């Protein structure tokens, strides 16, 4: 399967996404989502295109991007691993998992491993609160993740065949 969000920057593709969505009422969030889904982050070049299509200033678009935790303006690693930090997962050992994950990967939240396999992000609840600690990778949610399960998960991400485009 092709990993979503790994396409190289293509202004025409970005413009096509923007043109398709720009007439929706309240189009900015749908556009930002579509751009990030395609390119894995929102490149500075895209901000300029979006601003001009929606008749906003670049500062206004940046203001919106920075308000929402989900949007990012730098290229992440091949996989974004989100660890749930919220209370129901805390009650099941999420704090120990966080500490382990940071130590095992050698990164803090919002950082990417040196081999660019994993970007680590916090998340506040994945709705999987009866079977925590919960971790999300792509559209997959993992339940009852302890240190060992985390290491296995990361190992499987590392050894996954890299798509050659």
């Amino acid at each position, binding site marked *: 399967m092709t990993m979503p969000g790994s396409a190289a920057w293509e202004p025409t593709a970005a413009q096509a996404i923007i043109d398709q969505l720009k007439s929706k009422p309240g189009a900015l969030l749908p556009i930002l989502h579509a751009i990030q889904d395609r390119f894995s982050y929102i490149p500075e070049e895209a901000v300029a295109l979006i601003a001009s299509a929606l008749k906003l200033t670049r500062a206004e678009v940046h203001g919106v991007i920075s308000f929402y935790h989900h949007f990012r303006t730098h290229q992440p690693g091949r996989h974004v691993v989100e660890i749930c930090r919220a209370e129901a997962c805390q*009650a099941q050992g999420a704090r120990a998992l966080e500490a382990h994950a940071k130590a095992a990967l050698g990164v803090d939240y919002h950082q990417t491993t040196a081999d660019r396999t994993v970007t680590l992000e916090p998340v506040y609840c994945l709705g999987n609160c009866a079977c925590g600690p919960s971790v999300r990778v792509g559209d997959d949610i993992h339940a009852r993740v302890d240190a060992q399960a985390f290491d296995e998960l990361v190992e499987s991400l590392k050894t996954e065949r890299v798509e050659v485009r």
Partner: protein
Amino acid sequence: MTYRIHVPSDTTAKSLGADRIARTVEQLAKEQGVDLEIRRNGTRALYWLEPLIEVDTAEGRYGFGPVKESDLDSLFAAEFWKGAVEHPLALGLVEEIPYLKRQERLTFARAGVTDPLSLEDYKAHDGYKGLENALALSPQVIVDMVKESGLRGRGGAAFPTGIKWQTVLNAPADQKYIVCNADEGDSGTFADRLVMECDPFMLIEGMTIAGLAVGATQGYIYLRSEYPLAQKNLNAAIETAYANNLLGENIQGSGRHFDLEVRLGAGAYICGEETSLLESLEGKRGLVRAKPPLPAIVGLFGKPTVVNNVLSLAAVPFILDQGAKAYADCGMGRSRGTLPFQLAGNVKQGGLVELAFGPSLRELMFEFGGGTRNGRALRAVQVGGPLGAYLPESQWDTPLDYEEFAKVGAVLGHGGVVMFDDTVDMGEQARFSMEFCVAESCGKCTPCRIGSTRGVEVIDRIRAGENVEANLELLSDLCETMVDGSLCAMGGMTPFPVQSAMKHFGEDFVKNASNAPALAEEV
């Protein structure tokens, strides 16, 4: 002969391996020449039993769970598809499992029973009867039915839904909107997710009825981006509804019109607050608006707008089908109907427990939940999400009722119950509440934005044993300032978990008080 089995497909069942189980079952059946029809149901949300395979029989559905891949050989050897067979994972008839049998599943009657994306299944289980009735009623009669049902908003504030709808019905406008709040940000809650993943047509039907009731022709579901499967199922169900003339122009030949679209949030807790949500839907930063004006008068794009939680809208088809009285007959006092509670955190039997209001929190946590998962003593319970109070044992006999909870300074909120064992450090929990507010405040007002940052610092000093008494007093004052001076409940309620932790678990804050001099010297 063909045997039919069901393998759940919601996020939690999948997170526990349900997809792999379904694939392996299919493969084994092929290899062994067993004629199995594998359907994917939603989930019953008896999560400690997931993945829970169900088998159709003449007497009802037999269950097996929790199933691991390594159990499949023995399940096949036992010919589990026949239902009433001996096996260590055999659970008997699923609907006889006490956890399920003792519930009053009105909203969740279909969850785990039907295929979420099958319109035929939905209709075969009373789906779209409410809309059929509504299409024959005047807007005012629909609104009156919702009022009479006693339904109060399930998103947290418990405002009467019928009264909100009346305001929008009365507001003259060329365009009105129905907005479903599917931001479900509260930790410990997943009932909205279950509706959207397991029974999406119910939400679509409820929103369509709301549109008829107030004269709105456009609906939006504002869905959090943390729920990819809910997004997929909602979009698929919406497409089916359009294809079957249950959305769009001239619905079922009635001349009425309703369009519906899913919009994604982007990981901001504050966008669950209704005015922040509207700003976000408009494509802006989610800054909270001052009220008045109410969204019912000046809402999305300045137009009259109903903003309701998923569960509020999901309760509507039942009310229009079975009547307002059938709904209002459940419950106690001013809390009518049922609330889907969600047992989460350190709980042995986590899952969804839909109950009429009235039983105690203790019954919920022990008779349903079975106590903690790891068997340690239960110590603290946070009810109602990250802005809800922590309850100590002395409060566990409080009946599950909005007003009774308010009396002890707690909230039911969206029905999330998060259990903590005796290893919890309540000073750390209090700190997290403040830290969460720092991360999630919209930044519009000072008590919330600055207050929470100060809150983290003060709690850190207390936990380090610095000037404990003076700092505790400072923390109390800070909490009061936030409660009194915040524009919305984000800043206004963040102190609830903090104050309850201080009041009931104060010893956890001062554990290090004796280290104070040593620490002071280090700095």
